[in-house]
């Protein structure tokens, strides 16, 4: 039996903090560790569960120090314990509004309002929709973005996974515990996952990799029945019978909260300089939500450390 107990505090007595961190993924919790060690009173706001996106990942194998890999849930747990050890407060409230016009900055959830002298935005990213006919209609009716949540519903069924990057391939391996057959559809002529993952899908009889094909639609009656694909070089649309489809075709930043308050790039990622400063003084960004070239747990950790260091310097300079 697996038991996951979320230990964060429910309500905070404090309403003002020197540093506020929005997002409790690897970047946010690393920043909390560093700020805590600098004796900065720090709060971390988390929306779903501490750990961020990684709690959906069954096993992380490329994070140094864990030779045999570690589950995303377990790693998230360690980050929380580590951040709390150095005094960070974790509040399970979704921040729905920010006011960055003056300091202290104001952060509001549906229940409470808090202020902070500096902020680190570490909201992460979400799976990107592919924008084809039928996608919206069949989300939650066969289409899912969370294999950990929904893979068991497709026991003995055919499933299509969209995208052969690390996420798509890793999740296909997880889904293969339940599904009868999985087709991974990738529009490039090669998968972009790590070679070690490619080896694994090649050895998995349930998984078929279809490159140079793109998903052009989802069809069904009340629920998904087939995924329509097409060769990128042309040709006819072909249906793949499938009751489930999991989409891992890139990410979108969770930057809605700051879209009119911070400078973003054309894809919505928060623009930062090399110090991870944003367009507002005293506000920093870290992890998948900012404009960076490679989004991994390891890179998010580095971002968290840099952002915390810079936030600390900012707080010292503006005492």
């Amino acid at each position, binding site marked *: 039996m697996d*038991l996951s*107990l979320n*230990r964060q505090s429910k309500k905070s007595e404090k309403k003002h903090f020197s540093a506020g961190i929005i997002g409790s993924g690897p970047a946010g919790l690393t920043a909390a560790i560093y700020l805590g060690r600098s004796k900065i009173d720090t709060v971390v706001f988390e929306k779903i*569960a501490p750990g961020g996106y990684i709690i959906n990942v069954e096993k992380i194998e490329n994070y140094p120090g864990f030779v045999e890999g570690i589950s995303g849930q377990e790693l998230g*747990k360690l980050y929380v314990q580590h951040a709390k050890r150095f005094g960070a407060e974790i509040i399970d409230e979704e921040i729905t509004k920010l006011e960055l016009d003056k300091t202290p900055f104001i952060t509001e959830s549906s229940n409470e309002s808090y202020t902070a002298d500096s902020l680190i935005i570490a909201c992460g990213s979400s799976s990107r929709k592919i924008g084809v006919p039928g996608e919206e209609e069949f989300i939650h009716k066969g289409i899912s973005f969370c294999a950990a949540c929904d893979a*068991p519903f497709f026991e003995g069924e055919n499933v299509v996974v969209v995208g052969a990057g690390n996420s798509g391939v890793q999740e296909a391996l997880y889904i293969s515990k339940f599904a009868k057959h999985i087709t991974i559809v990738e529009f490039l002529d090669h998968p972009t996952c790590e070679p070690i993952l490619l080896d694994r899908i090649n050895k998995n009889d349930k998984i078929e990799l279809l490159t140079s094909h793109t998903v052009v639609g989802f069809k069904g009656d009340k629920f998904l029945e087939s995924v329509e694909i097409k060769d990128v070089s042309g040709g006819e649309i072909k249906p793949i019978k499938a009751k489930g489809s999991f989409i891992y075709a890139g990410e979108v930043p969770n930057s809605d909260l700051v879209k009119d308050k911070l400078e973003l790039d054309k894809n919505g990622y928060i623009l930062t300089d090399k110090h991870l400063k944003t367009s507002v003084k005293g506000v920093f960004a870290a992890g998948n939500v900012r404009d960076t070239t490679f989004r991994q747990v390891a890179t998010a950790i580095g971002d968290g450390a840099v952002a915390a260091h810079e936030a600390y310097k900012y707080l010292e300079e503006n005492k």
Partner: protein
Amino acid sequence: MLILFEKIGGKVGLISEQDKEYLKTEFSKNIKRKVQLLYFTDQEKESDYTVQTKELLEELVSLNDNLSLVIKNCDDEKSMKSENLTLCPSIKVKSERNGFMNFYGIPAGHEFTSFIEAINDMGGDNLPLSEDIIEDLKQIDKPIDIKVFITHGCPHCPGAVRNAHTFSLVNDNIKSSMVDANYFDKVSRENQVSSVPHIVINDKVNFTGNMPPRIFLDKIKEALK
């Protein structure tokens, strides 16, 4: 998040000593009245699932003197009916506080969190809802039955269960149950569940996702029309 991955003899997962200490502290801080865990099970058809549930509940109630466990058979139809329960196994968290917090199936995986929260809420005075939501909930004058279908691997589900359960604290007309979608697969199919959290209100309105309390409340109002 604290996660326990203990498999003892491949059979039962028990609470680690570290977590027991944490829960003891939390319970002693939050629980101010007697809380009963009423577990309905089919004792003649025991499975790993029901045995593990019983062992988990026994461990939990040993952590605080205000907690108690009552085990009943699901064939005790009179008791099931008086508790407004329709599926077996089920765990109802009860106290003198108003509220209907029920779990159809084992509250394991991520749902262990919502189970602990239900115990703390039933034993304490906490009400994590804003004043305007509370006022709106008080206005509901017809029965509302909420089922929140979950899977144990779903990190989004405990939030939906918690919302539904805390709504029941405000108004006696609201009854809320978590439903393990995999264990109760027939019920899941009947309710067309293919993604979680999947919420069904009065068998009339359904939606998927952990929505903020205000949107959840709007769905309840929709079910009342």
